[in-house]
């Protein structure tokens, strides 16, 4: 046999990528996931349109209610909720095969002898999975088309942000699955490890949803909570980088632990270094928080004039709240104002006074219960209101500011009465059939 000419790195990468895609297409788990996603997205979308239409009927009669009708929260977040389910429960079973099957079959021993670094090999596997993930967005694309044809409103920045959130969530789940497969001896063990991570994160978010302290902090780091930021349309640089870093960490751990020819001590050292570097990056981003409100009605932002004024506060603003952590007034206050203030005021401290309510309809033993105290530059004021319209003037008064709000266009909402049940055929019959045909073609080597 004459001495062959070996392919370039680029050609090699292309060949391996094709091979990885071929392997994925032969995976029954992938096609089962795609069919289930199609059914779930269809169900969620049709239900969401139905509920949105019911609310829109009222909003069309009472225009002042229409401002609450935004398609992101009403249609797209519930529709993409189907992806959250599949990414949490089904995607790990597809992603685990990327490495687990190669380990089990011995193919990994051959792949590791190719002139590709473990980083490149894992990267190509990730790209292959990314292409498959894009295919899984077909039902979502169909939902967008149907919504558009029904006359529904689409605000692209919101959709792109939502997609980015699900992309990062999927990336993290895939990287966790790859790492689980790398360190596990069998596919079932890897699946258990990965599900423990994704479902554990889900449970953590649920348990910590209304808690302060350590549990609350841990809950804010859960995958579910990170995804929620994207669903709300508020992009925080810290969250984006934390989310990406978490995926990157598991990817790097996979790269580090993939090659069986390297010593465990060396791998442990590299893993620790990766963890430290990424922790430093995340903590550095927390020092300079940046936010972007991508919602059409800028519901996460104060009036631009208020934001500009609050950014000028050069002394710390301290707010002491006499409310129980479970009190709905506190939850409203946090959501409606404190979060917006935190994004505008350069230095703000929020303190929670030791207090507790005695029941929904009982009088509190503490006379201060419900009180909110404000302190700025040695001046104090207090109030029982949790309304933005009353609190902002207090703060401006303490700081000696006069603020005239900018005139902004009033968001009228996008109420729509529509019927999406006609699309059921597409989601429940045509798309699943399409995926089934894809599975058969792949099985016959024609895809």
């Amino acid at each position: 046999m004459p001495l062959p000419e070996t392919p370039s790195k680029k050609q090699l990468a292309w060949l391996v990528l094709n091979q990885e895609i071929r392997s994925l297409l032969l995976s029954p788990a992938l096609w089962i996931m795609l069919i289930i996603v199609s059914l779930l997205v269809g169900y969620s979308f049709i239900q969401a349109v139905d509920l949105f239409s019911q609310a829109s009927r009222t909003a069309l009669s009472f225009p002042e209610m229409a401002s609450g009708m935004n398609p992101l929260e009403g249609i797209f977040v519930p529709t993409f909720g189907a992806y959250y389910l599949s990414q949490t429960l089904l995607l790990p079973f597809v992603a685990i095969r990327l490495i687990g099957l190669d380990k089990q079959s011995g193919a990994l021993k051959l792949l590791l002898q190719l002139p590709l670094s473990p980083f490149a090999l894992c990267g190509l596997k990730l790209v292959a999975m990314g292409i498959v993930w894009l295919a899984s967005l077909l039902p979502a694309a169909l939902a967008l088309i149907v919504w558009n044809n029904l006359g529904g409103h689409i605000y692209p920045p919101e959709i792109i942000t939502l997609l980015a959130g699900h992309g990062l969530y999927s990336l993290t789940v895939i990287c966790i699955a790859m790492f689980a497969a790398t360190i596990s001896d069998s596919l079932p063990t890897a699946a258990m490890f990965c599900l423990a991570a994704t479902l554990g994160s889900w449970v953590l978010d649920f348990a910590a949803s209304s808690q302060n302290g350590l549990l609350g902090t841990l809950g804010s780091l859960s995958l579910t909570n990170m995804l929620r930021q994207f669903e709300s349309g508020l992009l925080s640089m810290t969250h984006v980088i934390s989310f990406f870093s978490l995926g990157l960490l598991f990817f790097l751990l996979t790269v580090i632990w993939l090659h069986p020819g390297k010593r465990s001590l060396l791998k442990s050292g590299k893993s620790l270094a990766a963890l430290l570097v990424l922790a430093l990056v995340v903590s550095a981003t927390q020092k300079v928080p940046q936010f972007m409100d991508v919602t059409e009605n800028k519901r996460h932002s104060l009036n631009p004039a208020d934001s500009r004024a609050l950014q000028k506060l050069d002394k710390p603003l301290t707010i002491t709240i006499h409310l129980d952590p479970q009190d709905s007034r506190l939850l409203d206050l946090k959501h409606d104002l404190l979060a917006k203030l935190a994004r505008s005021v350069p230095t703000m401290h929020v303190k929670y006074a030791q207090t507790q309510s005695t029941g929904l309809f009982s009088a509190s033993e503490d006379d201060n219960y419900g009180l909110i105290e404000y302190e700025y530059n040695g001046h104090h004021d207090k109030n029982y209101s949790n309304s933005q319209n009353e609190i902002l003037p207090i703060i401006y008064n303490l700081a000696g500011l006069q603020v005239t709000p900018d005139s902004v266009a009033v968001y009228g909402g996008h109420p729509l009465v529509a019927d999406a049940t006609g699309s059921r055929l597409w989601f429940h019959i045509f798309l699943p059939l399409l995926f089934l045909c894809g599975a058969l073609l792949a099985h016959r080597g024609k895809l």
Partner: protein
Amino acid sequence: MPELRVIGINKRFGTYQALSNVSFTVAPGEILGLIGPNGAGKSTLLECIAGLLPADSGTIKWQDRPLSLEERKQILWYQPDNILPFAEQRVAATLSFFRQIHGVSSKDLAQLVDELELPPMLAKPLKDLSKGYRRRVLLALALLSPQPLLMLDEPFDGFDLRQSLAVMDLLRDCRTGRTIILSIHQLSEAEKICDRFLLLDQSCVLGIGTLDELRKQSGLSTREGLEEVFLAIT
């Protein structure tokens, strides 16, 4: 000058010593047989040389230059035993993948496929093949590799006598410019194809040399075969 020099390889799995101070050399173009019973450490040794297992100590040199993990990819190809790579894909697709990876022409692949009598199996997934055909596919994958050192783990396992002889002819054909290390537990096959033998048992090298040299070492006459030599030495 030897092509490959393995110096003082030690490997331990917990308290079990799998390889104990294993050293040997292989000359250019030579076929060296690693001989030993199951569990002697043959596969572990090959994996340590290939860099797929970290040796606790020892050095691998190629043409008197220590080999890093990256350099080993250019110098050697190791075909493990008992693997079923890309089992769900058609044999043709897997062979084509490795053909392109190694830059081999379609014509050369077709010739190799013919020599291994694989054409009827090309459209089937590897997992659906019999043990013998799986072996042939794995052998084809190994023979497609261009590296100057080829290491095969149990290449004759699953073949009948006629098939083994055909495979030996193939290996002899491909040895031009290549050095080959075969891990074999069937001594009759090893005797037919290998130039020298490394006898491995219970993690230690018990002897290395040609059959004549090993006969002398064990004090046996020239009529005795490798089996008798192996039994005498172990």
